[in-house]
């Protein structure tokens, strides 16, 4: 089941909406697709919308951190937007502070910050 998660181009940024029922395989496949897309287009930033995500574990946390690392190497900033309070608390409790990613309240905020770069 590939392609559940959509990657859309908004301005010069890639918008990725992660679904709540995303599987580990899908998220790895997404990582692959996303890296290719960033390399092919002139991309300033990647916006990961995780507002649908209700549960996180260390695996998802690590993949998000890796996505940020990959984009950075390909000269794009990663923004995580719409994180739910419970998800934030869980990540902090897992000790995953994700210092390498940028965060924003919503898509609008992230786009505004990207425009400033």
């Amino acid at each position, binding site marked *: 089941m590939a392609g559940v998660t959509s990657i859309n181009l908004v301005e010069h940024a890639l918008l990725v909406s992660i679904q709540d029922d995303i599987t580990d395989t899908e998220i790895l496949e997404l990582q692959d697709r996303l890296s290719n897309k960033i390399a092919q287009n002139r991309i300033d930033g990647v916006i990961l919308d995780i507002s649908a995500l209700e549960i996180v574990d260390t695996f998802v946390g690590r993949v998000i951190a890796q996505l940020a690392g990959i984009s950075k190497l390909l000269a794009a900033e990663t923004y995580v937007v719409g*994180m739910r*309070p419970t998800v934030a608390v869980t990540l*902090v409790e897992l000790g995953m502070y994700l210092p390498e990613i940028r*965060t924003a309240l*919503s898509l609008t905020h992230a786009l505004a910050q990207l425009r400033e770069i």
Partner: protein
Amino acid sequence: MMPQSATANILTVLDTDFKGIIEEWLGTQVKEGVKRSDLFSDAESRNQNRELLKAFSKGIREGVAGEDFDLDDDKWDDLRAVLADVSRERVNRGVTPTEMATFVLALKTPLFKRLEALADSDHSMLLRDVMLVTRLVDAFAIYTNEIFINEREQIIDRQRQEMLELSTPVVELWDRVLTLPLIGTLDSARAQEVMENLLQTILERQAEVVIMDITGVGTVDTQVAQHLLRAAAAVRLMGAECIISGISPMIAQTMVQLGIDVGTVSTRSSIRTALSDALLTVGYVIKKTEAQ
């Protein structure tokens, strides 16, 4: 002759002179100094005693098999219900546990007197009855105390809950600027409450900057610092900026001595500077009016 049930005499006494027992019970309470006329009117006390004694007699009539009884039994439902009411009332008005126990135990005297009169000079019968009454009233008193303590614990629980809520207010200072004035000690339970409350409010108000003010926090040890930094990290993950303000020189020194690294979290000494920085972030400046 049919063997008499163990409670027969006690019930006879209760049935023949119900009113008299209540009056004497009240009298004993006065003598023992546990009748709080300052808290309850005579009519109220009499009413409480009447209800209790009625329920107690009902319990004895139905809930004693042979010489055994168990106040947790269904048969004692009435007594437990009345007792719960009376205890609640008394706890709320500030009656002490001793007064509460003595109040119930005072019931023994009037019962003993009447049993003695009934027994005439049959001492073995009197002894048996007195022993049973003692056991019943003692169990009654112990149960009362238990309910009394339960009531108090509930009050304490409720107050703790209220304090927890009161002590973690998240205030909207300006559009998209929140502040969280922390006061007192920050233990794990409170830190958790604070964090959840804060993150929820960020979501609701779409806040961009949060000022956590620790002016009112007495001491900052590694534990407290850890809680603060975790909250700050969670705030950042939500996409808002976190400023910790109110760090006194004393606290700054302690934090450095403890080797606490705040990382990328901004810190300010006063809420004043934190506020002007926060407003700047969301695009406002505080300006003096020309006239002044």
